[in-house]
């Protein structure tokens, strides 16, 4: 069991934020605002901590000469160059933005394109690996949504573009989405209560 001091702090701050929401008192609102701003600063430091952790992990790989360590070496070098250039010329430098954009956007877009090929391939193999009703439904739904998303080349199939696809997107998908959102909301509420009660201690306690 971790120190009860951290738990007490978490519960106290959670209650103060709740009071700022539900009690129309200026003091509570000011406290809530202040605590929220502290969270922004802490989140920024969390990004820096994440960068530091990433750097440490890859440096460890380089030191141990683990498999693929040269990728880690490339990452460390790229990080160092971007950080140094960014600190020198500033983040608003157009050249820096182009260089960064020329690297990040094609890479990530290429990964998404690969995903498209993979999804097509998986969908082809799905019926072979798992032939059941749900698989068929899944495949059929996906095909219908894709066909109804945009007009087909050379022709527009209204029933697909304006009936089937909107129906699928606005009824079953919306139902599922709302259910998902409600579930997320309930889960978030429950998680907040558990944190306030000290049952969950995502800040390090068990």
């Amino acid at each position, binding site marked *: 069991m971790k120190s009860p001091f951290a738990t007490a702090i978490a519960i106290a701050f959670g209650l103060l934020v709740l009071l700022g929401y539900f009690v129309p008192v200026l003091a509570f609102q000011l406290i809530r605002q202040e605590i929220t701003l502290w969270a922004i600063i802490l989140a920024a430091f969390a990004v820096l901590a994440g960068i530091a952790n990433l750097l440490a992990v890859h440096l460890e790989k380089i030191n141990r000469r683990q498999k693929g360590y040269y990728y880690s070496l490339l990452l460390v070098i790229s990080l160092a160059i971007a950080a140094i250039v960014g600190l020198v010329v500033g983040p608003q430098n157009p050249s820096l933005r182009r260089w960064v954009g020329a690297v990040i956007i094609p890479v990530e877009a290429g990964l998404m394109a690969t995903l498209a090929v993979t999804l097509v391939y998986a969908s082809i193999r*799905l019926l072979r690996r798992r032939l059941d009703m749900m698989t068929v439904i899944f495949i059929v739904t996906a095909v219908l949504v894709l066909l109804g998303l945009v*007009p087909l080349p050379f022709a527009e199939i209204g029933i697909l573009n304006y009936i089937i696809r909107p129906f699928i997107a606005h009824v079953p998908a919306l139902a599922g989405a709302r259910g998902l959102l409600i579930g997320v909301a309930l889960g978030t509420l429950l998680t907040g209560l558990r944190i306030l009660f000290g049952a969950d201690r995502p800040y390090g306690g068990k």
Partner: protein
Amino acid sequence: MAEVRCPMCSKPNPENSVSCQYCQARIQPLTAPLGDPIHPGEEPTKKSTSELEPVLPEWLRKVRNPEAESDQPDASTDMPLDRFPEKPPSEQPVEEEPVDLLSRLTSQDADDDEEIPDWLANMRTGSGAPARQEPAQAAEPQVQADWLTDLRQDETPAEVSAASTPENEGGQIGGDLPGWLSDLEKESRKEEESLPWMADATGTESEGTPTGQAEESGDWLADLKSETSVPADFEPAPPSGQTDEIPGSTDLPDWLSGLTTESAASETLAEDQPEIAAGGLTDWFGQADEKAVDSAPAPEPGSDVDLPGWLSNLGAEAPGAVAAQASADSVELPDWFGQSAEQPESSAVPLQETGSLPDWLSGLDAESTAPAAPADEKPSAFDTTEGAVPDWMGQPAQEPAEMAPDTALTEDAGAVLPDWLAASMGEAPAPAQPAEQPAIPADLPDWLAGVTAGAAALTGEPEQAQVPLEPQQEADWQASLPAAESQPAEAVSPFMTESPAEVDSAAAVFLERASAEDVESAFSMDMPDWLSSVKPTEIPQAVETPAPVDEGDEISPASLPSWVQAMRPVESAAPDAAGAVQGEADVLTEGPLAGLSGVLPAGPAFVPGRKPQAYALKLQADDDQQANAALLERIVAGETEPVPLTSSELVLSVRVLRWVIFGILLLAVGLPLLARSRFTPVPSLFPDETLNARQAVIDLPENAAVLLIFGYEASLSGEMEAAASPLVDHLMLRGARLAILSTLPNGPLLAERFLARTQAGHNYQAGEHYINMGYLPGGPAGVFGFAQWPARAMPVLPALGGVPGWQSQVLQDIESLSDFDAVIVLTDSAEGGQVWVEQAGPFMAGKPMLMVVSAQAEPVLRPYFDSGQVKGMVSGLAGGAAYETVNRSPGMAIRYLDGFSMGLFVAVLMIVIGGLWSLISAWRFQRARAAGEV
């Protein structure tokens, strides 16, 4: 002028005086000096006195000859006096060598302790074992002394009645002796004739003594008597300087001096004492009797005539010694006896132990009580109280009347036997005595009882004398003999009252005081050889009287021979008081170890109290518990059992298929882009969300401040840029001021890229038309913080043209989120849009929130549009194309529409074809499996 102090009264006398001018005691010894005195702890010089064996008394010879003693009954060892008539001393040859009767005792002691009688063993060890003395108290009646048995046989009723008659006691003393005493008298005469030391003693004393009685009993006993009469306040003798003036012969008792003289000296002495030689014992015996009668205040019959003179004087001279002490305050006695007389602790000793004393030692006991008597009550040197006179001499007329209530046997015994003998039978208990006459044990001889009673009366402590005494069954005079050296100065005679342990205690105190007061010289001059062996280290510091033990619970050790008793270790005889009492309480009463104390008991600590309870081996558990146990057992067994690896069906790696798919999609998407064709028809129907978004933009005021949130990743930047470009273009067309904020780290970069690639034609300038505020960390918290206080959530904005961000034209009038005319969220994830709707929605104050989302996030975020929280939405490339179509400004979205449509169609086609092929393959596989081909 040199003076010599009398060893008896300690008064100064002229140097050449032979006898004391005051007490007539002999000052100059009859023998030559023995040399250096023997100090305590030193071994006496061994002397060859084997030639004197025949002249010794029987009891001494028995002590010296344990082999012969072992043949005798045990009782005989306790009663040595009955052996006097058997071997007259006159028959023994007298040697010319120095007489040392006790020298062999010490040698024997060194050789073998078994041969040492108890009283000598006690004296040597200096500690009387309580266990050894207890048998004397608990002895049974049948252990009567043989000499008493002989007395009953020898005495005739006539003699007894004559001896007990008061008239005869006064005038026929010495003539009406019992037979055994007559024999004893004869033997004594013979011994006087043959023993120089007896002759010397009697002759010398009678010669120089006015009264001629006190000193007739032998010098050594007289000295002993006088020494024990030292008052309690007696001061120690002066240092050795003064004692050096006394001749060395006076340092030793006369009797011991006589033992050391040579035969020539004894002959000379015999010539110097013609009266003694002529009168024999008769004279001194008669004198002793007369003295006893004269000194008695009451007409008590005295049977002192029945004893040898040296014995009778012991009892008769006790009052005389008291009187002598009272009249002479400055009597100088040997210090070691004087110190012993000062011990007050012995005054509390009960009387019941005195019965073990022999008669002749009882006289010593009476003497020891004399110092406690007040001086004014004893004006005469030889006055005696009635208690000091032996009862058997002075109370024959009273005793029968007092014993009348007792049994007839007692009456007969009182009539036939002497009182002391009748009392010794133990039949009649001691009658109630007046306050000044304490109770005397009935088993004591009358004369001894009288002495005890008189002594108690003199001390003025009747309460001690009234303590009921237990009948004494055994006259263990040997055991009580050591007590002679440790007599207290008051109360009842320690000889009669002290237990051996107390004697040892008194001896220890005496030795301590003797050493403390530097009287070693005086101590050593009177120390006999056998007494010199007493070592202070062997004397215990404190010994208390052991508690009496019930006779029935004990095996009386009195029946043990003396050599067995002597084998007992000295250490065990000197325990502390608590240990002694505890040990007696723990004495075993049965078994082979009966009579021993301190034995580990085989008690409950070693024996189990009860049989151990038997427990059933069957497990007592109900069904649920057994079920749970079985489940746990299965789980544990399952963990240990090896799980066979299921061989997965080999999936054919269709790398070629992947490349085919990649190629088809590449062609399907790339060819329309390269061909710049428009074969895909534009949608004729537009979604409501897109139309609402366009209307919201249209509703924005001129030069409206719009917060544009970039919350999508670079991977979906192609779709997002195509979907958002018509809306942003519309805003720019409307002249909106754009405040660009990103909730992702890459958001600012994508925002700049977006503006550069899609809105370059608007010529928007940073700081003037738009401002890239950068990255807002914190997720929902950051969004919430920015929504409620934007300036504090993003306090530092890049300065453009030297102007701070919040003071630029874009943000100059922005203080809160509601100051923005619209908030447009560009996000590719449902969570991103959700956060802004939930956290920033309440702070919008009715201002529209629009969203441009990817096709994948649209189903999740659509509910917010349906609920009205989001005024308009552009969903994906299709939404962008629709917005361009509605806005009549074809752009990127329509341009991408052929490639996007062709790519979706090809992908769906491949999925369908591939799915069918997979389905057929699966069907064939299952068919083959069913046919057994696989």
